[in-house]
């Protein structure tokens, strides 16, 4: 067993009376992509800031690279790459200057920084924007630049707080591709997201957070097996028709009635569909799909809207 890169026991973060992170425990191993999945306000970002040694731990134990963030913050940050939720780029400066100044914060020699900037611009597909100001760049470009900048010190661990929020599908896929390449190089990644597809695509292992607590932990596949079924059958009934839950009894392992549709969680969609035809149900449309992390997520964190 290798030493965990990040080790947290009963980690807690409080702001005055508000508990943002409530006694969470987890380990992140070298080389893995570890995810924090949760709705807004679940405590993901607060956890990331503590790992990043920029926000003090209120209670509990946290070590990063075996070091204490309180005492050895600068040493930890020297080996970290941080991609915060907001891009925090200096928009009055050029792409090159943003990278260069950031590199100097790590006290890297100027020649080394210049070499790395060339590599990173290629990595981020920004070679021809090298001497352009940051402000006119698109959202996707700014995000890629922020990620490139986080790599300037060749970090062992990269913290990505909602890396693709607000990006269009092309930009998201391009970013996932970049992150996957980093993983292949052996870099450890910690990602927060509220996108299920992102978690499924990227994460080897993840925890679901809700209200500051970890409510489940496992690989995406494993979580789906444990908290959802293999398949989901979605039924839509004609407008205005009321269906009694008892009429659906025995069709699936679990039934969820939503205002616009009804979800049947089942291990065999084929069997469920056969059974449905045997009942006198007036069904407008049927969709059959595999369970996703989204089903797990909604089951664990509820359907009510979180502001």
């Amino acid at each position, binding site marked *: 067993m290798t030493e965990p890169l990040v080790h947290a026991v009963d980690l807690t973060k409080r702001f005055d009376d508000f508990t943002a992170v409530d006694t969470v425990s987890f380990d992140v191993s070298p080389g893995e992509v570890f995810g924090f999945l949760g709705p807004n306000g679940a405590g993901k970002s607060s956890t990331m800031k503590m790992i990043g040694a*920029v926000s003090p731990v209120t209670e509990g134990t946290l070590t990063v690279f075996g070091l204490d963030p309180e005492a050895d913050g600068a*040493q930890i*940050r*020297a080996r*970290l790459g941080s991609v915060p939720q907001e891009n925090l780029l200096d928009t009055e*400066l050029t792409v090159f200057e943003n990278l260069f100044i*950031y590199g100097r914060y790590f006290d890297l020699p100027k020649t080394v920084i210049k070499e790395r900037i060339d590599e990173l611009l290629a990595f981020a597909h920004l070679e021809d924007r090298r001497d352009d100001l940051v402000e006119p760049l698109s959202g996707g470009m700014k995000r890629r630049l922020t990620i490139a900048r986080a790599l300037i010190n060749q970090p062992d661990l990269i913290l990505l707080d909602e890396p693709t929020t607000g990006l269009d599908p092309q930009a998201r896929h391009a970013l996932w591709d970049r992150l996957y390449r980093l993983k292949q190089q052996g870099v450890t990644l910690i990602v927060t997201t509220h996108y299920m597809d992102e978690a499924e695509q990227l994460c080897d292992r993840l925890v679901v957070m809700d209200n500051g607590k970890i409510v489940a932990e496992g690989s995406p596949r494993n979580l789906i097996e444990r908290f959802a079924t293999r398949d989901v059958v979605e039924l839509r009934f004609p407008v205005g028709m009321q269906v009694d839950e008892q009429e659906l009894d025995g069709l699936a392992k679990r039934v969820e009635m939503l205002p616009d549709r009804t979800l049947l969680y089942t291990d065999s969609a084929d069997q469920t569909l056969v059974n449905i035809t045997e009942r006198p149900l007036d069904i407008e449309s049927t969709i059959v799909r595999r369970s996703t992390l989204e089903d797990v997520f909604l089951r664990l964190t509820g359907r009510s809207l979180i502001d």
Partner: protein
Amino acid sequence: MATSGSLLFVERNARVYRRTWRGSVISTFMNPILYLLAMGLGLGSLVDDGGGSVQLDFDYLTFLAPGLLAAATMMTATGESLYPVMAGMKWNKYYYDALATPISIRNIVVGHFGWVTVRILFTAVVFTGVMVAFGTISPATALLVIPPSVLGGLAFAGPISAYAAQLENETGLSTVFRFVITPLFLFSGTFYPIDQLPNWMEPVAYVTPLWHAVETTRSAALGIETAWAPALHYLVLVAFLLGGAVVADRLFHRRLNV
């Protein structure tokens, strides 16, 4: 040898300044020239003809110039203690950027004051250069005049940086110029000795750093005695700088270490 984080932060500010220096350089050069022309020569001829220079022991331009120098370092220090701090905390948040790297909050505080010192020094050097060109001081005297004027600026940088560190929005920025800097500029002995003011107003000047900066700077420029013992004037200025810096350090930590 590892460069200290504070120095790296000063380097950052210098690099950003290298991109944006043009506007500020022009005002750094133009302000002393315009003020010395308008006030020193224009208003000055009236003062001198009216017997003012007899009372002052100097022609008005010579009397005025060191006062304006002290006011100029005050302005630079104030601007550099307000806008960059607001930007670091609120606007583009470059403080947070730096804090994700080995740079610490203390590095940011020390680096901030380091860079403000550089900017004040630049203002003082340019201004004394203009004074030499106008013939109000000799080049040798210029070297004596720079230290008190820089210290005078720093006496503002301390408390104003602390003030900026707790601002939530930018309306508080113009308040400083409107209610602190402009009144001080007019009533702290820059344009005339404060004993020209009504008696009740004189003590107000004692508690403001600008009067002490004007006294020490003018004394160095003209070789005259200061109103109080020089050590007392310097003590007040150092107290403003250190007191402000300590409070600023506290407030930077409170704001950034959450």
